[in-house]
């Protein structure tokens, strides 16, 4: 019985923790412009992250080492440095977007300008990182993030023409005045939003934080293989609700307010409270995870002591790194740059940086030094290679498409 509870908690936490500000904004935006004609990208991205999270979780459970730790020793310090710089930059940008998302959620709840909340949120995030146990942190924000199911409820409440929605999913093409370059640009953005690099660092480092062993492998797999797809369904729900409410009115999404407004339309004030709590949990949780990932990547490259499983003074550089990254992110937001724009750029840069993360994982997952007899079988390698190809394609296409479509206009 206790096992079942543990499994359920793990799955629920994975679902609630799946959506972050990038998924929220990108799916809402895409739904309002393309309906569900890009749903296949979200689905593909979910499968991709399942494949790579499973691999990095396996590496953590069997070898006791998180992935970024191994990247340097397996690929050499110079290649490792390239992976580090790229991954750290993208993770820090994503963290900034999440901080912005939390601040915007507070603005929508209170009416006070979001900039006032930026320093407050930064300090709150740090306090949690400093004092709250890893597992407690994951459980609280993961479960609270489940409130985003309200998007699925809203879709059901809207009594959509399911046939028409299904038709959109089956027909992958731009609609209305949208062009193919813009279609592919948002395909790359959605892909980057679903397969964010920090997820993998966090998942494998988190495995070590929670002292996973071989026995935890099954639980880790269940979390990933059930939790992430269900989280992906939430992403599709977000795109569906804006498709239903904004697409017919030619409304384009560029604020967080517009992202949650459809919930108020369908479910009233109660729905609005629930969705704002859910957005808070999802973005705050993601801010914690990205800050930790920023610390993990650099500390693991240099071999410095890292982790919340030791006292802060035993991992001074790890904590100092996180503090400075948080401050840098907050300062960027305080220049009044639009946090939604930061989010949109962060998902595209995520797509750009994906090969730096996924290629090493695929290599390490085949190395018996770390995995013994649990290296990739043919199926895992087949899937891994397919997704590596997709990841490289998306990365190569990202900047040209961004320039050609002027970032999606």
């Amino acid at each position: 019985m206790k096992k079942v509870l543990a499994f359920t908690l793990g799955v629920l936490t994975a679902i609630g923790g799946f959506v972050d500000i990038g998924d929220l904004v990108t799916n809402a935006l895409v739904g309002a412009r393309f309906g569900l004609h890009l749903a296949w990208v979200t689905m593909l991205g979910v499968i991709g992250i399942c494949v790579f999270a499973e691999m990095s979780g396996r590496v953590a459970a069997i070898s006791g080492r998180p992935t970024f730790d191994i990247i340097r020793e397996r690929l050499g310090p110079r290649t490792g440095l390239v992976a580090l710089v790229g991954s750290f930059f993208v993770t820090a940008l994503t963290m900034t977007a999440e901080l912005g998302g939390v601040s915007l959620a507070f603005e929508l709840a209170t009416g006070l300008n979001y900039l006032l909340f930026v320093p407050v949120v930064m300090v709150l995030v740090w306090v949690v990182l400093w004092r709250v146990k890893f597992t407690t942190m994951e459980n609280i924000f993961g479960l609270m993030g489940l409130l985003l199911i309200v998007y699925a409820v809203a879709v059901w409440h809207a009594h959509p023409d399911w046939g028409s929605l299904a038709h959109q999913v089956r027909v992958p093409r731009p609609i209305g005045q949208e062009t193919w370059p813009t279609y592919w640009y948002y395909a790359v953005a959605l892909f980057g939003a679903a397969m964010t690099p920090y997820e993998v660092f966090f998942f494998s480092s988190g495995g070590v934080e929670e002292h996973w062993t071989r026995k935890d492998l099954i639980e880790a797999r269940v979390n990933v293989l059930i939790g992430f797809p269900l989280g992906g369904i939430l992403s599709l729900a977000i795109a569906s609700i804006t498709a239903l409410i904004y697409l017919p009115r030619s409304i384009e999404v560029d604020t967080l307010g517009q992202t949650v407004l459809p919930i108020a339309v369908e479910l009233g004030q109660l729905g609005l409270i629930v969705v704002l709590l859910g957005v808070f949990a999802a973005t705050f949780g993601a801010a914690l995870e990205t800050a930790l990932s920023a610390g993990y990547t650099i500390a693991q490259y240099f071999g410095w002591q890292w982790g919340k499983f030791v006292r802060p003074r035993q991992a001074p550089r790890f904590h100092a790194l996180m503090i400075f990254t948080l401050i840098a992110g907050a300062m960027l937001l305080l220049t009044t740059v639009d946090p939604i724009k930061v989010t949109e750029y962060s998902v595209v840069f995520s797509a750009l940086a994906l090969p730096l993360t996924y290629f090493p994982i695929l290599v390490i997952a085949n190395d018996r030094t770390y995995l013994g007899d649990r290296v990739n079988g043919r199926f895992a390698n087949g899937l891994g290679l397919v997704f590596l190809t997709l990841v490289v394609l998306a990365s190569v296409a990202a900047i040209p498409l961004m320039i050609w479509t002027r970032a999606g206009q």
Partner: protein
Amino acid sequence: MVAVLTGCAGPTIRDEAVYNQSEKSATAMISELQTVLVATDTQLAEKSWWRFADVVITDAETSATSIQSTFTSRQPPSASSNPIYEDTSTALSDAADLITQMRVALRQKDVATMQKLRPKIAKAASDLEKLETRARTQKP
């Protein structure tokens, strides 16, 4: 020779840019007007709360002002694109104005004014839709 050339100057590449910009600005403004409509209706139906609607509509107002000033800052290069430029400027200005009025009414919780402004905003949106189509189809 020179006089003949300037006299016969047809629409230039930069004229096309004015039509493009008209179309883009119209599309963007329609989105803001419609957002204001949805937010207003939701608030009037008591499905949200005042501060929330305030944030949404103030954001729309900020965007609308920006759309308008970006468009009017670019002068049309020749006489042939003047009409579309003038019409778009006027339409954008009226739309931004209406959104500001709605924001003011909402802050004062003036339900009566909000309800009066609704059909005006809806009309501004449909006028801009016609302008959008015109800019797209009449592009040189």
